[in-house]
């Protein structure tokens, strides 16, 4: 993707480079079938575009699950630690005060804040982490040039293969995609 970014910068002056190839399907069934074929053809830099999460597609594309959960777990633990440390240090160490004759540090009173901070840290990580891993926000993308691509958020399913895929060859890839039974296979310029 970083490459994609760099190429996109050059794109301004020189004649537009080829970004990849795109094919469109009507139904989920066709999409899944097509995806399995592309996967078996050994492509790696390719993707499916759907208006909603289509299940079974991960297997059909053969992609591994994300590592997001581990990040979130780490963040949660951090949140808890921060919560505990903050309350201990401020109330019992930095500025101890006799309050209602209670001990300077008593865990029960500190649990709510620890809990909330755990959730807060984890949740923020889940959200921000998702965006980061998805490389969002990314307001420019080659596919946005394709008028047809707009229906992918409404009611169409598409498969795109990127030009920077080592196995990519304009003619062959196009042929492969046409063989999937989709409609309007076309090359996408960057």
């Amino acid at each position: 993707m970083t490459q994609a970014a760099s190429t996109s910068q050059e794109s301004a002056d020189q004649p537009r480079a080829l970004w990849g190839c795109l094919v469109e399907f009507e139904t989920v069934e066709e999409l899944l079938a097509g995806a399995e074929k592309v996967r078996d053809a050994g492509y790696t830099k390719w993707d499916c575009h759907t208006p909603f999460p289509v299940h079974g597609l991960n297997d059909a594309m053969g992609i591994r699950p994300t590592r997001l959960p581990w990040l979130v777990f780490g963040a949660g633990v951090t949140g808890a630690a921060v919560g505990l440390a903050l309350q201990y240090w401020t109330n019992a160490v930095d500025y101890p005060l006799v309050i209602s004759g209670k001990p300077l540090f008593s865990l029960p009173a500190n649990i709510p804040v620890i809990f909330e901070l755990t959730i807060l840290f984890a949740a923020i990580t889940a959200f921000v982490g998702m965006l980061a891993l998805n490389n969002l926000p990314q307001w420019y993308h080659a596919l946005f040039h394709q008028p047809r691509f707009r229906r992918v958020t409404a009611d169409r399913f598409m498969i795109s293969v990127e030009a920077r895929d080592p196995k990519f060859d304009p003619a062959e890839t196009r042929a492969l995609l046409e063989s999937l039974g989709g409609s309007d296979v076309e090359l996408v310029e960057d």
Partner: protein
Amino acid sequence: MTTLPAHKMLLDTTHEDPTRRAPLVLGDHDFGSVTETVCRIVERPKPPRAWYVAFAVSVSLTGVLVGLILYLFVTGVGVWGVNNPVGWGWAIVNFVFWVGIGHAGTLISAILFLFRQKWRTGINRFAEAMTIFAVICAGVWPGIHVGRAWLAYWLAPYPNQMQVWPNFRSPLVWDAVAVGTYFLVSLMFWYMGMIPDLATIRDRAVTRIRQMVYGLLALGWRGSNRQWLRYERAYLLLAALATPLVLSVHSVVSFDFAVAQLPGWHTTIFPPYFVAGAIFSGFAMVMTLAIPARQFFGLKDIITMRHLENIAKIILVTGSMVGYGYGLEFFIAWYSGNSYESFAFLNRALGPYAWAYWIMVTCNVAVPQLFWFRKCRTNVWVLLGACILVNVGMWFERFVIVVSSLSSDFLPSSWGYFSPTAVDIMMLVGSFGLFFTLFLLFLRYIPMVAMAEVKSVMPQALMEGTGHRPLGDYWGDMPHPEQRHKAVDAEARS
């Protein structure tokens, strides 16, 4: 969907048949038509006149609220009815009330999600919106109710020239952290859920500005499956985090009372009872909003009677939990043998605030019992009326808890009566104005149904044959599309 196709008859959504589950979307919808139905609302150049009227009213009420807040700031909290024994008045009542309202949204979007309740997809978007707006309305109060509102930020643990820190033993600090967290998480959850739909509107945009604005908001979403993968995982995680959070928030709010030693506040039953109450009132509010919304915006196929009926059932259950809470309070007050405690509750039922107490009991315990009857569960007017009453009742519950306990505690010499001022009343009304202003704006500019999610539970979203049962089990055992088409054809022929 002007004329309902005949097969609707075969598929009465409120009819419970264990052998086959009713579809979640009625009518002859496909992905395109769903997109169309939902986006049309946002895209049409002018909303219905009703919207303008409602918006005008809400905005002016919001203006009243803002004006009164300024008045409050220049004069002092004495403009309210609060006095010496009753140090907390309507401000806190309203705060608890609004926070409670918020809970239904999170419950629908998070807890029902974890429980695979697919019917949630029709209503979760605006339920979440309701959460956000309710929490905003709630957030107004704690800030302005303190005597020196301009110093309220001292609750935050930041290094300062006074070199002191907040007192983490105080429930108010827990409260600030909990509600703050709750707001942020709900906001992220809501926004994240919206990204694909914002992208949809971006892609359907006819004007440049719409494209720019929604484009910015959509963050460049391309609906790519690699994105969907992380997106769904993140959504699941957020749901999993939001679930304990939503339970914790109202528990912490209840600590504001339960941790104090005031008779009538100092009760261990408060956390569960507050949470139940919150869900109770929240669902009532969802219903109050859903019924007109589906009516005005022609969403009857997506927010079906089945949705409403399910909500009614939840209201019945939570309402009964609340009723149980009321009963148990009295039992424990008597059983504990603590004379202060038992008086506090006797005083609620028979004392100067008996009127408020009995309004509360009627609205929260008696009214929901209607929902034992299917006729009531499926009649929008009954539903609407009952839900409004429930919200009234829940407001009074908070009033009774806050005010009656404070008004007569330990020393009879210091018992006092609270009576609200005009400022109290107008500010409460104003907060409703704020809520509806935000909600109307939401209806106007944001897809009020989570299209992507709805599509994913439509029959067309499934493919036969494959044994795929991936995460979320997103499609129920719906009638086979083939059968449905056959049914339609049959209709057509005859």
